[in-house]
């Protein structure tokens, strides 16, 4: 952005061109602010959607499996079998339905009322005593994630039950032998709370929404309504128009960030281990990238409808799908992983997850922030090139 405009030759531009420039920018920013406040659609994107997303992500969505309905078939109650059944009943992970008949359990499964069946057959007690009992576990595999958790939990519940001890007591301890036992440590999120990673992701979505989606709509609107035509034929410079479009939405994005931070901290109790200053700095970088993307799209398309669609497809969807926010990028095919490197949100997600849960890890922060800074500079330069005071 040029520091000073070429001094206009007219009678009034002569003194203090910088002051006139500042005044124009300030007037345009004020105008933009008034429009945000008065236009219900700006209000909807800038305020209603972020709040809704915060509530949905914070309260509605959870990847943690809880209250999964299962059926435990207890054909003949025995102490061992009942103990296993009880452990399912007491578990917060399951809503347990105990039935003596496999046929009934299957009916429940077919009608979709339960997602899994634990079958403790009538000879369970006897065979457990002999050391070769088996528990049949049937899961509805449609939701693989839930199914896996049922399997893992059922396995653990059975293994920990008194059965094993009872069996061992009969034989020679050495003959049973030792085994490798896994001791888990989940760093950064020992509570396994999925909000811990959903909330940082939420910030990405909201900043993308305000920065790119909203900016693209308001700029396209000026083209569509013809308000730019009159504005262009004034002493206003292109860079002034751009600055005045960037600043308000940048600020609104920062408000969105604060809102998210506050709800993360006070509503959802997600820890934040980095420094607020670093967070603000990298968020500003990503916000700049988003705003510049929105400006670039709308300056190119000049139509609200197209701009909004393209912005959704080009920024919002990748921020959700290809940023590593929900789905891990290490497991996707190479082609998609390569594409994900082009998604700025990816770097920001990485930064946020690190800062929230790990702290200011400079080996993560510096390279990611550097990439964002470069992208921001490139996008701004492109926007500057594309935006012209011309109707051509």
């Amino acid at each position: 952005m040029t520091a000073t405009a070429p001094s206009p030759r007219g009678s009034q531009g002569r003194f203090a061109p910088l002051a006139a420039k500042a005044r124009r920018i300030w007037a345009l920013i004020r105008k933009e602010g008034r429009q945000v406040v008065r236009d219900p659609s700006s209000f909807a994107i800038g305020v209603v959607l972020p709040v809704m997303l915060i509530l949905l992500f914070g309260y509605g969505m959870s990847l943690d499996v809880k209250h999964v309905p299962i059926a435990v078939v207890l054909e003949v109650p025995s102490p061992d079998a009942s103990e296993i059944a009880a452990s399912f009943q007491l578990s917060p992970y399951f809503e347990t339905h105990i039935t003596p008949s496999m046929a009934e359990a299957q009916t429940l499964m077919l009608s979709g009322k339960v997602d899994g069946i634990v079958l403790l057959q009538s000879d369970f007690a006897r065979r457990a005593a002999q050391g070769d009992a088996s528990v049949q576990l049937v899961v509805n595999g449609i939701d693989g994630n839930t199914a896996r958790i049922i399997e893992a939990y059922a396995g653990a519940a059975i293994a920990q039950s008194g059965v094993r001890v009872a069996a061992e007591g009969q034989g020679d301890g050495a003959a049973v032998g030792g085994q490798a036992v896994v001791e888990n440590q989940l760093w950064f999120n020992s509570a396994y709370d999925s909000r811990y990673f959903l909330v940082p992701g939420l910030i990405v979505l909201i900043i993308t929404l305000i920065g790119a989606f909203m900016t693209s709509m308001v700029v396209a609107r000026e083209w569509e309504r013809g308000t730019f035509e009159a504005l262009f034929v004034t002493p206003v410079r292109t860079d002034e128009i751009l600055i005045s479009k960037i600043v308000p939405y940048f600020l609104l994005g920062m408000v969105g960030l604060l809102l998210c931070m506050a709800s993360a901290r006070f509503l959802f109790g997600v820890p934040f281990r980095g420094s607020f200053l670093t967070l603000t700095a990298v968020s500003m970088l990503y916000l700049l990238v988003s705003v510049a993307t929105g400006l670039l799209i709308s300056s190119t398309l000049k139509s609200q409808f197209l701009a909004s669609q393209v912005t959704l497809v080009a920024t919002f969807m990748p921020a959700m799908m290809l940023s590593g926010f929900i789905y891990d990028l290490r497991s996707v095919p190479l082609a998609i992983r390569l594409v994900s490197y082009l998604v700025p949100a990816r770097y920001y997600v990485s930064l946020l997850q690190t800062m929230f849960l790990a702290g200011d890890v400079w080996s993560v922060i510096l390279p990611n922030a550097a990439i964002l800074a470069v992208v921001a500079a490139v996008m701004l330069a492109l926007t500057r090139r594309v935006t012209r005071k011309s109707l051509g």
Partner: protein
Amino acid sequence: MVASLLRVMALIRKELLAVLKDARTRNMLLLQPVLQCLLFGYAATLDLSNVPYAAFDRDRSTASSALLAKLDGSGVFHRIANLTDAADMQRLIDAQKVLVVIQIDPNFQRQLSVGEDAAVQVIADGRNSNTAGAALGYVNAAVESFNADWRGDHGLPPPPVQVNARAWYNANLETRWNLIPALVGTITMMSTMMLAALSVAREREEGTFDQLLVTPFTPVEIMAGKAIPAMLIGVVQATNALLVAQFWFRIPFAGSYVTLYVGLILFLLAAVGIGLFVSSIAATMQQAMLYAFVTIMPFALLSGLTTPISSMPPIIQDFTLINPLRYAIDLVHRVYLEGAGLDRLVPDLWPMAIIAAVTLGAAAWMFRNRLE
């Protein structure tokens, strides 16, 4: 009656022409489901592969090597470092170079040999607890497999209680099998709702709605003429997505197409009803688009597509009862993967029918009373 049908046909033809004429819109509507299915099918997976891990083998015995070999051979893990210093562990995880570090204690083999349990410490990066949880599951499986081998090799009996797990409908528990059929509903809902919402708003904004109203069209004919094209496009999109599911991802189709399409049409009717209701409130295209967007967002997020409904708080679960997508996703899953017939789908069908009836009725009422 015939005259009325002909008018509706003309309106349908006009709507389809207007939407499909523009190459950009046409591509967006018809190719988008395919692209989204491909993208989501590959990107949105909770099934891990290529997980980078580091081994911190302090035992350096045949047993510890065998355990690590299990991991390396699983196809899921990919060892990128052998650590010699505990400090490296922190460094690699912090920098996101590895997702998991496996630490094997110095006495691993000796403990196993004397029949003691030996600890394998698994340290996972919990920044994405979802991925980390899945990775831990895979480590567990690998360790189980190692244990079984060890017992076999050392002539030990199998554990007294065995769990024989079997998964119905999706034996390998692939995320994709869950996701892609669910997308059939999600993608078609987004498009049909937007189309229905925008088609009326566009006419209003461009002034053609008045022109339409002074012709002999009745409000019901206009509603039908707006709803049917959006539904037709929805059916084509759903078909495209189903084709990708079957022929690209090779997810076997277990049910009947007739059942599936009956369910889908009911669902599309509900989606179009919501779209038309939105458009009856909106004054401009921009408003229609935003209202539709604000409606789609919670419907998509609270549908069971990304997170299970059973894990949501009760009040939110109650809210999902008015979400047609919730029923549609369940319906497609059950027809596609379980092969359920119409009789088993009644719990999904009647709520969608009610939603369709209520929203279409409300939209018709709004049109009649808001023509001012």
